Structure formats: C-alpha cells, structure tokens
C-alpha cells in the first residue's frame, strides 16, 4: 500500500517536472533592422553569469555559450530559438537586434541569477509577448525600462516574482498589453514607478490590480504613473487613497 502511494506521488512529481517548460523560447525575424546581417541574429546579454546552450528551428545547436553570441542562419527569415542553462538577462537597450525579436514564447530559465533587467527588452518594437510562465526573476532588483518600447504587444503580462525588485521606472512604458495580474507587486519594496505605465492600454481590472498590489506591499512615499488605458474602479481608487495616505503620488488616467 505504502509503495503504491509512493509510486503515485513519484508519478505526479515526474509529470509535474515533465509539464514545466524550462526552456527560454523566442522567435526572431532576421530580415528586420538590427546591427547584425539580415541572415543573422545577435543575442546581446545583460549583466550576470551566463552559461547556456541553444537550438534553433533550422538545426543549429550550440553549447557552452557565456555571453553575446551571433547566430548565422542559412537564409534570411523567421526562426525559433530555444535556450537552456543559465541566462540572466537580455539587454537590447533600444538598439542592437531588438527589432528582430518577433515573439517571446516562454521565459523558462530566463532571469536565473539576474540582478538587473534594466533595458532588457527595450526597443523590441516588433515583439509579441506570449509567455505565460513566471520565469526566474526572484533575484532581479532593477527593472527600469524592462519592456519600454514603441509596441510590445500581448494579451497578458504573467505573474512574475518581484520580491527583490527596487525600481520599475519606465518598465512597461508604451507597451500594448492590457492585462496585468493581481498580486504582481505584493512582495516588492519598489517605490519608483515613475512613467512605468506611460502611454499604455491597461484595462480597468489591471489598474485596479496594480494599485491594490502596491497598497498590499505596504511601502511609503512612492511614485506611480499611468497614462492611456482605463481609469480604476472604486476598488482601485480605495487602494489609491490608502497609498496617498502613505505619502505616495499617483498620476493616472481619470
């Protein structure tokens, strides 16, 4: 009986491991403008220690990479790239090959060992965010300009770990993502959300979620900014009142 139960637990565990996609997956269009040739894509990495392997849909397989790396494909086109190992952060920084990013499909190992996500996806103006997983953001403190772009689109931003985050200024500026989850900022100590949601399309539920989460985090004297999108409901406004009572300055859609 005990052995049967242990086997069942083991099977459940194995299934859980098997179902979690730990690969960092995204696709690129090498024909878009960038610093590499039109049959290439350059991974421009941020800070941290890197040791990663990658595979691509046209059969490339490279191992033991430790930093920036340029992939040369057989011809110009759209390719998917899958990364395993340690990959703390991109840093396209509003240039490099950011405009070649077409989709971000799964965070997987992305973010592991990262302390900074500053300017990570800034300038990925052609990118659609499809990832629904939480990645590995638990050690990242700096999210300034994380996804600041002219046009990152997507249905929803996933619930990531922000417990080490200290700043989000300009983090989601000009993104085209309507839905942000509840509890996203509950555990973070960040108070700098200046221009974080400037020119965005937040739904009412999202701005409610954000304000309620910031209130739950319990920080004082912060700055929050939203323009575009929806105004909060009475739920969000109640959280906003709590925040201003703690010295916050909130600028948002009315």
């Amino acid at each position, binding site marked *: 009986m005990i052995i049967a139960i242990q086997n069942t637990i083991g099977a459940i565990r194995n299934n859980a491991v098997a179902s979690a996609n730990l690969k960092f997956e995204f696709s690129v269009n090498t024909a878009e403008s960038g610093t590499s040739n039109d049959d290439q894509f350059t991974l421009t990495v941020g800070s941290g220690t890197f040791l990663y392997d990658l595979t691509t849909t046209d059969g490339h397989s490279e191992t033991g990479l430790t930093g920036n790396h340029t992939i040369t494909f057989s011809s110009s086109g759209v390719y998917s790239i899958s990364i395993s190992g340690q990959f703390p952060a991109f840093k396209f920084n509003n240039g490099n090959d950011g405009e070649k990013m077409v989709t971000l499909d799964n965070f997987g190992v992305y973010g592991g060992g990262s302390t900074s996500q500053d300017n990570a996806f800034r300038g990925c103006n052609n990118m659609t965010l499809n990832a629904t997983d939480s990645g590995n953001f638990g050690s990242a403190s700096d999210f300034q300009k994380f996804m600041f772009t002219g046009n990152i689109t997507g249905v929803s931003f996933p619930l990531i770990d922000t417990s080490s985050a200290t700043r989000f200024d300009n983090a989601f500026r000009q993104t085209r993502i309507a839905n942000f989850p509840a509890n996203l900022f509950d555990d973070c100590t960040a108070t700098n959300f200046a221009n974080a949601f400037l020119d965005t399309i937040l739904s009412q539920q999202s701005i409610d979620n954000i304000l309620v989460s910031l209130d739950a985090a319990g920080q004082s004297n912060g*700055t929050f900014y939203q323009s575009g999108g929806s105004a909060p409901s009475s739920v969000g406004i109640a959280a906003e009142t709590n925040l*201003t009572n703690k*010295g916050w*300055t909130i*600028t*948002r859609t*009315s």
Partner: protein
Amino acid sequence: MTIKNPTKTTYFICRNEAMEIKSYGSVDSTQVMVTGQPHVKTYIREQLWLNELSKNGIDIIN
C-alpha cells in the same frame, strides 16, 4: 492635493515636510494626480519645471 483634468498640461514637484523632492511629473487633461506629500508646486511652462528639477540634480530623460 489633487490635480484633475487640467486644461493645460501641468507639471508638478512634490516635497515632504523637510522640503525634499519626493515626486515629480506631469498631468494632462485625461489624467488626475493625487499625492500625500504636503508641499506641491505646479508649473505650466515645462522649462521652468525642468530648471527647478535640474537645480536639484534631477535630469529628465525622455
């Protein structure tokens, strides 16, 4: 203090009791700003706002 749907874009600087700058920004006709800071100065001319921020070591990067 609240600035709600100003007819012209309004720039502001919020300071605490010790007159330290705690927040700054702008509000346009589609927005509202509410703050729990006790001192708020508003500006209609952006350059005057930028000058005041600059004097306090804050440079705005767009």
